[in-house]
């Protein structure tokens, strides 16, 4: 049972670290905008121009 004399301080240390990291992130403005990053990750990069053109060519012959 004496192991708790080590594990409890370790837990407290973890919590302290978590709080410190959160405070640092919050001060840096990471929690100012909670909407845009969630959406931004869903968007790919631009349609490549060459890809785009080949796509339009395909579109002109509609699959039936």
């Amino acid at each position: 049972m004496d192991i708790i004399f080590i594990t409890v301080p370790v837990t407290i240390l973890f919590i302290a670290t978590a709080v410190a990291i959160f405070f640092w992130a919050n001060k840096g403005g990471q929690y100012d905008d909670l909407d845009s990053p969630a959406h931004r990750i869903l968007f790919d990069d631009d349609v490549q121009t060459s890809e785009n053109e080949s796509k339009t060519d395909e579109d002109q012959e509609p699959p039936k």
Partner: protein
Amino acid sequence: MTDCYHCGQVAPSNIELTARVLGEERAMCCIGCQTVANAIVQSGSESFYQFRTDTNTTPDFTLDNLPLSVRQELTLYDNSDVLADIAMHLDNQTYETVLIIEGITCAACAWLIEKQLQQFKGVNNVQLNLSQHKLYLRWNQDNTALSEIISRIYSLGFKAQPYTPDAAQQQLQAEQKTSIQRLVLAALGTMQAMMFAVPLYVGEWSGILLQYETYFRFAGLFITTPVILYSARPFFTAFVRDIKTRHLTMDVPVSIAIGGAYIASVYSTFTQGEEVYFDSVCMFTFFLLVGRFLEARARLRNGEAGNELHNLMPRACVKILESGEETLIPASQVAIGDCIRILPGNTIAADGVILNGSSSVDESIITGEFIPLQKNTGDPVIAGSLNVENPLDIRVTAIGKNTQISTIMSLLDRASQDKPKIAQLADTLAQYFVAGVLITSVVVFTAWYFIDSDRAFWITLSVLVATCPCALSLATPTALTAATTALRQNGVLITRGHVLETLRKSKRIIFDKTGTLTLGQLTIEQTQIVDQYNEDPLRIAASLEHFSPHPIAHAFQHEELLPVTQLHNHVGEGISGVIDGLEYKIGTATFISTDMPESASPPDPRHWIALAQGDNVIAWFLLSDEIRPQAKASLQSLKRLSLQCELLSGDQSTHVAHVAGTLNIERFHGGVSPQGKLDYLAKQNPEDASIMVGDGINDVPVLAQAPVSIAIGSASDLAKTHADVILVSNQLARLPQLIKQAHKTSRIIKQNLAWSLLYNASVLPLAAFGLLPPYLAAIGMSASSLVVVFNALRLNKLPK
């Protein structure tokens, strides 16, 4: 009929505009949308159209035909003095600034803007905040000028303006950050304190060695202390304030419960006493902070714009030097006595007297009159009004704080202070509750002191802990949050906390006319043809008016125009021109009747415009400001909700009576000045909690003073910042829904309060008789809080 692919508006069938997007020709409703769509496709960001979840807004203008005022503004942004004003200079021509972006409808818009701006050389940080519509920008002025960046934003169909927040807003943002920190610390602390409490609870059942018990108590103390010192601090500061002002609020029992339980637990830890409450202390703090946080968020308005007055005033104007030369100067550098030139379509930068020129001036934003006034040499003009057709040279008589529009602002400051404070139900209740708890505690302590003096302190403490008003303090904020979220999703933005509570008590709703009940645009309401004529009179009228910038001209629309020669514009009177060799005139009755006094008199005193060929009047057009489509139905449902509808307008014309008649409004007043509106409101019984609905600058003071004020989404920024509610979607039909939601919210709040009081009242005897173990108190508290939260979630749906 097809909808515009870009903005979703109906594309007129008579014009064929398309743009090739994502490999298909898509219908466009106007040149503006087409240009923007092409710009997006050509710049390689076509996938924007795949990503977006909502249609865009219709652009007001394209990059090729920007209004002069915007073009002037753009060139000013590269002036180093102006730049120093709106941006922060870092080093080596690197600047940092925040821009407010208008027209963002979904997350893809943010992606598009960021993507496009990143392509510029020298732009090294672009971040758009979606919830506030602010763009954080860092760029190198040598590589890319700010004007170029802003023009790109315009070319994508958005509008941009530098943002400079005032001190109050900055403070609010800082407070919001701190409150998140307090909340997170309390959450983590609660988790850990509960973890350390488990061995103690288990130990009570099965026995625990004293050394382990003391060890876990110290661990709990270690975790709880920062929660008390940092997270719970707002309660203690409020407690001190309440004691000083002798005003009981919820903070009093909260502070006594938290503080008392903490001090008792600390004492118990060091003296190996009976009980510790560290987990409960943390949990109280966390629950109460959640309540406060939700409330603050529900009350904080979204996307508010700074620079209230600035948005209204032009940033640049043309100054005429004594040598006759013209120079462009920032509007802030205009001095009294200067001669400035106001071009047609521009906003007048300062109060002044016309030196030269004559033109119509649109003062509707200040006076509410829907027809522009004719101004000639020697007439005064007001800053903030719009010059319609001809250039005007004016001698500046007042600038800055002394302009007439600023006088309205100072009226406004006074009005906001006079706003009646309506006590909130929860606050009144809290007073009784607090008094009750404190008296009970004293009684319990005295009673137990005589029965068993050793247990008196602990039992009194458990009474305080059991009655800690967690559910009670969550009752109002959760209901408010759910109700305002539901409203916001339907285009009604609540910006002040008291609104839903006050709306419930309202008995009267007062409307402004121009722009609120009406659309604020002139249309032809009625046509009277005097003489049968082989050509459609509307077609002739539209052809004559086609090139006129006057707002009246927009009312005359026809698809096929006739060629006009010798077109002549008689300022303030009308237009004459020759079509097919015949001379036509269109204009006011006086314009026509100077030539032929007898026959030309309008059918009634409303705003009739005559079209004449030579000496004969062909037709009369009745112009009026069209009433909003849903106005009539909305007013009827408001009346059914037993609200008295009234009309209060700055407009002096007979149009006020006409609008009131159409909408069945019995009480109406026209020609009321901003001060007059304030006086009218002051005469009303404050018990009636009158609602004021408006849009213009002339409504701003009265909006600020009214118990509840509602601004239309298309209102001036100034009106919006001072309104309690903004109808973002411009739909009057939302008004009855808003009132119904207010009633429902009040019902739910009452249920919540009743439930939490019932809970507190029922555990009170158990605690008072010393029968309530701390873990049961904790479970009961969480369960009653959950009931309150779930009940509040019923408000997520708006009543029909």
